[in-house]
């Protein structure tokens, strides 16, 4: 009897001792994993009894692993890093904790973040100021910018404003660049289409679907304009027909065969680190033509609904996203443009960027980020993008009439979206 009591007491104490040392699991991809690891020392000072495990996988593998984890509700991390491209599916799945509810009450922090980024993490059609749920908190954003080669422009006798005043001016400049220097204006006509379909999306709507979830590809004027401009670019021979992130794309930058690239501001870091470091000083960053403001990518942090240590996870997320020092450190070391408005000022932003020839581009990117409007994300966005790209290929290579292409695309998307 006595032995039993002793044994039980020992068991209870050992269990208690185990329960004290918690393990917080964070799943991320490069470079978010490095950012999290760099932030841990400061956070663990406040929580000395917590072990943090950072599980890092490559970008695509990470999201596949998260898909599997959500599907089986096992091996779920406590803090999940999600990139913008996957946020729509995960947010709409119901597998992420609603951070607008108590005890998180994320909406109290809404004004501290760049408006569009916070709205993207919401679950109710992404409208800014919406009162719906919040699936994820933004940590970094990718304000869109036009990177161009100043030396090629100079050779063609053009100014930056010739590129950016309007889309027609952009294409006209491209023709001049091609005839005088032989360089292509952009990597692929599809890039132009991608940005034009994101221009002037009405509030509450997505890129491919409206607020009710109906496909707008066949009816919206954005798509018609986008296809027409892409066709014009291809017809004038201004695009290099190179897909982004391929070996040829990097090679084209190294050799100066492509004069401009529209992408998130983080491309500057990639160009200077590994894509084309020898072209230092030749690039400049400009606002997107036609006064458009758009974002490329962006990282969010979410908590799975079935995670174990949700309170600690929320604490870590707040440390990573609301802490000004943390956001600035991530920006300095890993080019992660802060989503926190308070971190978007200071000497670092005023610093001239050597790779861009001394341009103080960060100020430009900040202004862009504050002007971007959020677009709603839908579950069927990936298949819609695939179908629209396929129809654009037919327009560009087989001369399919644009009206037919858009009609077919709309029909196919409707068919898939009904499921």
């Amino acid at each position, binding site marked *: 009897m006595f032995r039993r009591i002793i044994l039980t007491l020992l068991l209870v104490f050992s269990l208690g001792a185990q329960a004290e040392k918690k393990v917080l699991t964070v799943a991320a991809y490069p470079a978010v994993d490095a950012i999290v690891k760099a932030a841990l020392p400061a956070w663990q000072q406040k929580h000395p009894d917590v072990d943090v495990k950072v599980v890092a996988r490559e970008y695509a593998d990470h999201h596949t692993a998260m898909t599997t984890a959500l599907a089986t509700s096992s091996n779920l991390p406590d803090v999940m890093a999600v990139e913008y491209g996957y946020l729509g599916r995960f947010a709409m799945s119901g597998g992420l904790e609603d951070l607008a509810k108590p005890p998180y009450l994320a909406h109290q922090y809404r004004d501290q973040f760049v408006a569009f980024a916070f709205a993207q993490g919401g679950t109710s059609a992404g409208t800014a100021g919406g009162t719906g749920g919040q699936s994820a908190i933004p940590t970094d954003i990718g304000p869109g910018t036009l990177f161009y080669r100043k030396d090629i422009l100079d050779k063609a006798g053009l100014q930056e404003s010739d590129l950016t005043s309007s889309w027609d001016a952009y294409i006209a400049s491209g023709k001049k660049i091609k005839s005088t220097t032989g360089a292509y204006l952009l990597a692929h006509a599809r890039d132009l289409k991608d940005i034009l379909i994101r221009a002037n999306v009405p509030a509450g709507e997505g890129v491919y679907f409206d607020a009710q979830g109906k496909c707008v590809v066949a009816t919206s004027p954005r798509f018609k304009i986008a296809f027409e401009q892409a066709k014009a670019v291809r017809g004038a021979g201004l695009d*290099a027909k190179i897909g982004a992130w391929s070996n040829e794309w990097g090679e084209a930058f190294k050799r100066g065969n492509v004069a401009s690239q529209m992408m998130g501001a983080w491309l500057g870091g990639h160009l200077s680190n590994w894509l084309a470091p020898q072209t230092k000083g030749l690039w400049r960053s400009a606002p997107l033509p036609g006064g458009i403001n758009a974002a490329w990518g962006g990282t969010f942090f979410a908590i799975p609904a079935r995670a174990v240590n949700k309170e600690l996870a929320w604490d870590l997320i707040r440390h990573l996203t609301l802490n000004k020092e943390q956001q600035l450190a991530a920006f300095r070391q890993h080019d992660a443009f802060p989503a926190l408005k308070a971190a978007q000022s200071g000497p670092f932003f005023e610093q001239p960027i050597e790779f861009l020839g001394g341009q103080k581009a960060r100020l430009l990117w900040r202004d862009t980020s504050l002007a971007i409007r959020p677009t709603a994300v839908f579950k069927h966005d990936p298949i819609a993008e695939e179908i629209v790209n396929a129809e654009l290929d*037919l327009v560009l290579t087989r001369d399919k009439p644009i009206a037919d292409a858009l009609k077919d695309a709309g029909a196919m998307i409707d068919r898939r979206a009904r499921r």
Partner: protein
Amino acid sequence: MLKASVPYLFLSPFFLLFGIFGIFPIVFSFVLMFQQWDPVQGMGAMQFVGLENIRFTLEDPWVWKSLGNTFWLAIASGLPQHLVAVPLAYLINEKLQGSRNALMGAYFLPYITSTVAIAMMFTTLFSTDYGLVNALLEALQQWPLPSWLIPQEHIDWLGTPETVKPVIALVVFWRYLGFNLILYVAALQSIPRELYEAARMDGAREWRIFWSITLPHLRPMMMFSMTLSVIGGLQLFEEPFILTGGKGGVEQAGMTTAMYMYRTAFEFNDFGLASAMSWLLFLMIAVATWLTNRAFGSQQESI
């Protein structure tokens, strides 16, 4: 009692692993075929939809396009493999004694190299503006050759629907030629030498010997390796995936059924549809294998 169960104990590891990683996924996939499941929503989100997935698959134009691509690639890459491997095996077996192993090893090397590495190399080789193939064609322009033979501009090998399929077929052919060569050389070893000697003494020429003695004896091995080529060709995934950058290429020219299935499951998050596609592909492969059997299997011979 215990002694009787010992054999089963020894066999159990295999059956356990086979059950978990072989049988269970097949059964689960069959069940999934009748459900609609978005994996991100968790296990509870499975909805029974009956034959809806199957109907959708049969009506999807991209499924049929991918099946067409798959069959084209299977034939275009499989047939040359065997047409080249059989005579080559005969020549190596008959004419080479010392350097035979080295040559066979050289041909076999692509088979044991990582597919991803190979595909990346070929992507670089066939690059439009920076690749060696186009550079070679450009150099050939210096020679006095008719202009219809040598293209005047750089060919966009991987970006044009007409050329991306031959490139994929070429890579697959190059990769599996050595494997088939090894199989055929092994089969040729088993043909009795007396038959050849008798034929030569009777004055038969090389071509006659090849046609009347070698080929019939090779028939069982041909059936075996053809079946492997058929199955492998219809399941083609890695080479098209890397060569088209994971997207299937312009006009889905490089999208095989396996690739479309993978994308449906993991990019478009529709597991039920992907399962239906996989069973449709299984049916096709079963039919193709049966046809191969009919063509090559014969009543007297056996492997």
